[in-house]
């Protein structure tokens, strides 16, 4: 697959559609699986990694779903292309930075991605726009069932699916939703919300942020445990808390409009102003400002921008995307100038700056 064809599309999680998509960006389910007859990736020799990759690659391609997948040999990609796939959420940062034979199979809609030789031999991921955990699970289950017919997954009756890290053992499932929670951040309730999530053993991470520091008020909520509950129960655990968070965020947005309308309107307008006029701007600042504008659009304070528009900008202003769009490698300074140029053009009249 040509990575360049991906730069023209936007990918599932950016579509800005699906239930509750004003707050829920995307719903994601991933499964960790390993072959029974090879050491886990971290312990495998170069040859064993190669054999693992070859076997999985061939058998997945021969399965019914194989025809709808495109395979990318990540081990032979340039760093910028690997970074591009990370920004796209099709591979993990660990997978991008790893060594040896590895790859990813992706479906045309960018809903399904199968990472080979990440921490586990196989990491299946399925992502849907908006709040749709049930739909994502149904799809990933079908994919998993096809693959387990053609390769022997390591399985133990007591421990379930065996994984390189004991934190994933059992179901091997990680269920997560990405939420946009600007009003909870502004009204400083976010910290309280997260503490209560930790208490019910859910994890919180930021989008693109280092560690747990979220960038642009985007947060990912996921299950911490994978053993002792069924897949359905674990999905419920995450799914049950989402409507509560949506409700909190909506109330916080209402509060902001009711109590501090001028303030919020001012903040949002300034953010929009900077994005439309800046001459140099970092990826972090861009994301923070786009987050504010996104909220402004949803509160009816900004009229001439759409949510899918902002979602697209969120990913296209990331370093690797920006360089792919421009077709040249750029250092940080040049990227910041180029990013500002891209944003100005985008807001001026929709036409993308020519290469």
């Amino acid at each position, binding site marked *: 697959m040509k990575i360049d064809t991906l730069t023209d599309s936007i990918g599932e999680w950016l579509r800005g559609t699906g239930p509750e998509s004003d707050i829920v960006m995307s719903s994601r389910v991933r499964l960790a699986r390993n072959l029974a007859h090879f*050491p886990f990736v971290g312990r495998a020799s170069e040859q064993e990694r190669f054999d693992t990759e070859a076997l999985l690659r061939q058998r997945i391609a021969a399965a019914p779903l194989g025809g709808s997948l495109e395979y990318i040999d990540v081990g032979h990609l340039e760093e910028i292309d690997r970074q591009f796939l990370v920004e796209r959420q099709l591979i993990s940062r660990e997978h991008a930075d790893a060594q040896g034979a590895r790859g990813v199979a992706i479906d045309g809609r960018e809903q399904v991605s199968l990472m080979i030789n990440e921490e586990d031999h196989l990491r299946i991921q399925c992502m849907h726009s908006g709040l749709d955990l049930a739909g994502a699970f149904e799809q990933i289950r079908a994919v998993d069932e096809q693959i387990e017919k053609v390769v022997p997954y390591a399985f133990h009756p007591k421990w379930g699916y065996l994984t390189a890290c*004991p934190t994933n053992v059992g179901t091997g499932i990680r269920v997560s939703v990405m939420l946009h929670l600007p009003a909870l951040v502004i009204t*400083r309730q976010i910290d309280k919300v997260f503490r209560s999530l930790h208490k019910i053993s859910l994890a919180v991470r930021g989008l693109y942020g280092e560690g747990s520091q979220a960038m642009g008020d985007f947060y990912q909520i996921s299950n911490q445990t994978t053993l002792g509950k069924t897949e359905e129960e674990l999905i419920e655990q995450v799914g049950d808390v989402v409507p509560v968070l949506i409700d909190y965020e909506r109330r916080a947005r209402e509060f902001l409009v009711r109590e501090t309308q001028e303030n919020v309107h001012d903040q949002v307008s300034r953010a929009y102003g900077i994005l439309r006029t800046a001459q140099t701007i970092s990826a972090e600042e861009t994301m923070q400002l786009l987050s504010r504008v996104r909220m402004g659009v949803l509160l009816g304070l900004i009229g001439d921008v759409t949510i899918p528009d902002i979602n697209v900008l969120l990913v296209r202003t990331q370093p690797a995307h920006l360089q792919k769009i421009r077709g040249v490698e750029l250092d940080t300074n040049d990227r910041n100038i180029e990013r500002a140029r891209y944003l100005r053009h985008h807001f001026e009249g929709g036409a993308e700056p020519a290469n």
Partner: protein
Amino acid sequence: MKCQHCDRQAVFHITELETGEVREVHLCEEHARTYLNQSEAAGEPPLGKPGGLATPLGVGQTAEELSVLDQKTCDMCGISFFEFRNQGRLGCPHDYVAFEKELEPLIANIHGATEHVGRRPQQAAAIVMPQEGTEGLTRVIGLRLEMKEAIACEDYEKAKENRDLIREIEETWLGPAVAPPPPEATP
């Protein structure tokens, strides 16, 4: 009221309750964001990092007990429990059997459970043993290691024996080396 860190108006008034101490913080929006991000980072459990995995093992175990434990190795991939504790990653599927006793408290600590209740692989149902799962296939990891050692010692007889055995086991589990068309696709 002014922000504690700058001259701007304090808009966030946070009351921290930690270990019985009450502390008030007054911040402008910008400093509040930094502050909240910091405390959020501190609240993140160190799961997934080697350190986070290693810690619960120490509970109720003396240094001596631990050092004996650390020397235990897996017959298949050769990883020692010490290596696992350092890296936080296991070496192969058999580790869950080889280190079962040692892993049990750790897994209970992480998941609050020690029994899988979710889905089971369908394909393998015919071969997967009810007691030992895919252990029968995982054996080849150890056989491959032995084969390498035999070659290094120029014991070609033994190496050939292992190679044939590996082939036999793999074929039973995986079918012929080239992927057959999946059942649905055959007319």
